[in-house]
């Protein structure tokens, strides 16, 4: 065990993956000598050489296209997109290619060994283009797996599992936590299961579902609610596709109430899918409508970021609304 922040945990996962398997490559803009603008790939070029860890030209569609080719060839690429806000030029390569490679070829070719890492989310004064949470866009794409860790321990175990997994994984890293989240992390390799949600706090009055940096917001809200005697169950979804509806349903059958929270704009955020599925699975158990506490339906702002973001206070208000329904 060592104390690591989330970035160090990511770096450790990449390091161990490259050490264990020669076919693992890490690349992206500034990923090489410099170690990435956040330093997630720090020292990797030094350790494993510039054939396996390198800078790419500045083209996200090229990075993911190149990575698709490498994966089809049998390599195990871990491509970085510098900010999730800049993943959109690669949307076609991800949605039309990565996701459909295996299906369209009748399983003759696949890019299952691919992992795409990208820092996402707000809270760092990034404004429109350094704050977005675009995960929901990808959840509408069968063939992809989507993973979001909430802390250093989760980050390392989930990233190692993603790299080993034989389906393509989009790995969203909550950049607000890169240095802010610190915790004990085993130094050796370990994996955590994909497509499995985790109950991070038990309670019987209401279920809160979140992922990434929003989990600690939900935990804070649960803590505050608990002070007025309301016990929330907090669930970290961890994998958004294919996702674990059973764990949530079980909780909701117990609590009768559900709130989903995410930073992304409300309309067609992944909260919508959770509501849609859970109202069907738990129709007879629900005592109030499922609520969503999310970013506004606007681009991400700068000066009024605090007003925009779904914080613990907003969640506590929603918890009361749900209980008083």
């Amino acid at each position, binding site marked *: 065990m060592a104390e690591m922040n989330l970035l160090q945990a990511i770096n450790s996962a990449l390091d161990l993956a490259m050490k264990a398997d020669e076919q693992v*490559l890490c690349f992206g803009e500034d990923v090489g000598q410099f170690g990435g603008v956040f330093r997630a790939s720090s020292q990797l070029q030094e350790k494993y050489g510039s*054939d*396996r860890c*390198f800078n*790419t*030209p500045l*083209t996200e*569609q*090229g990075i*993911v*296209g*190149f*990575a*698709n*080719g*490498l*994966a*089809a*060839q*049998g*390599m195990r*690429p871990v491509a970085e997109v510098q900010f999730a806000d800049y993943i959109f*030029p690669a949307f*076609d*390569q991800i949605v*039309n*290619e990565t996701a*459909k490679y*295996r*299906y*369209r*070829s*009748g*399983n*003759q*070719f*696949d890019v*299952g060994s691919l992992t795409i890492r990208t820092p996402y989310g707000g809270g760092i004064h990034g404004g429109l283009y350094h704050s977005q949470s675009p995960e929901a866009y990808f959840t509408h794409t*069968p*063939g992809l*797996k989507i993973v979001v860790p909430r802390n250093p321990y989760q980050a390392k175990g989930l990233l190692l599992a993603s790299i080993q997994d*034989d*389906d393509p994984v989009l790995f969203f890293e909550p950049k607000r936590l890169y240095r802010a989240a610190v915790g004990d992390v085993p130094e050796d390799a370990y994996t955590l299961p994909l*497509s499995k949600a985790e109950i991070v706090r038990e309670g019987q009055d209401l279920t809160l579902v979140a992922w990434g940096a929003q989990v600690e917001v939900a935990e804070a809200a649960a803590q505050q609610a608990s002070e007025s005697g309301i016990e929330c169950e907090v669930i970290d979804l961890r994998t958004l596709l*294919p*996702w674990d*509806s059973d764990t949530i349903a079980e909780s909701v059958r117990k609590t009768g109430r559900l709130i989903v929270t995410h930073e992304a704009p409300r309309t067609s955020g992944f909260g919508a899918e959770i509501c849609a599925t859970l109202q069907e699975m738990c129709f007879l158990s629900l005592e109030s409508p499922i609520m969503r506490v999310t970013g506004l339906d606007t681009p991400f702002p700068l000066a009024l970021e605090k007003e925009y973001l779904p914080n613990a206070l907003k969640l506590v208000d929603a918890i009361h609304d749900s209980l008083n329904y």
Partner: protein
Amino acid sequence: MSDQRHWAEHQVNQPVFSDSLQQAIPTFCVLQTDGQVYPDATMPDIDQSLAQKIYRTSCFIRALDERMLASQRQGRISFYMTETGEEAADIGSCAALTDDDLIMGQYREQGALAFRGFTVDQFMNQIFSNEQDLGKGRQMPVHYGSRELNYMTISSPLTTQLPQAAGYAYGMKLRGQSSCVICYFGEGAASEGDFHAALNMAAVKHAPVIFFCRNNGYAISTPAHEQYAGDGIASRGPGYGIRTIRVDGNDMLAVLKATQDARAYAVESQKPVLIEAMTYRLGAHSSSDDPTGYRSRKEEQLWRHKDPVERFKLWLMAQGWWDEAQDQALKEEYRQSVSNAMKRAEKIPAPHLRDLVTDVYQQVPAHLEAQFASLEAHIQRHPEAYPKTAGRLHHG
């Protein structure tokens, strides 16, 4: 120092603009329209057996394309694309490769696949989307693929295969394989952003890939002069630092020679090459297209005189490697084999219902199993509405 740019050496004190087309890129030709080799032309490495294999493949593709287009008109298949007029481009280039070189096509390179040994039944099973299609009946006709033959499954979104080719080739290089990727695309597809990303990344990362552009004058109805304003696609190569050659795309020997040299260079120096083959699509873009809306019969006629297969046949005959009797027999043989294979393929049933949900992921995830179960139950309730699958549930 990390700044390794060199540019200060060559100074001028007058504002000299480099103009486009200042110096056109020449076109490499070996074979004249009458089947004679240009005097002093550099010949490819070719013997009788290779020459015959190339010619046979070309004839097979003509037979296939003709019959399938007719079948589409008869409503027996939904869609088809011919490569008529462009056989020298894909067959001539593919003949320069070894079998472990990967082929990534756009969609009009069935010739390369036939050259590799894809059987007439394999073609038919794909075209008829039956349960023996290697692609499990999921994609439209002509979207072939064969892992065994190192022929990547075709994907309709244009140009996506180009950066993938660079990555695939880079993987080959890291493994120390002495093979390369050949990646075909049209002059229309070359306008996509992925083209730019691919050529630049391949150049920077020294990936052994042959970018092979079939410049056939049109992207559906859009003529080349509305597609680009420079000197074709070849003129872009040097800008990326990529070795480049333009070749007469209707000249089997020139295409073969250019690709042999390109392959040797790509594999030995582990770098990309760009080949632009100037040719013409004699048929419609696809069975959904009618070219009379955008070009004249006269223009097409002009190009019929440059038919790459006829030209190559004349050369073959001049070598004493082929005669008319053989030619008639071969064409009849292919007509028959295509026709018979078509009849076989039509009788093979559609894929099983289970093929709807497999291969999305390596394993069918729980939510998709649930969707499948409810679909199956639905079909069992209404078997008459699903004739393709209702009789064969629980087989998968």
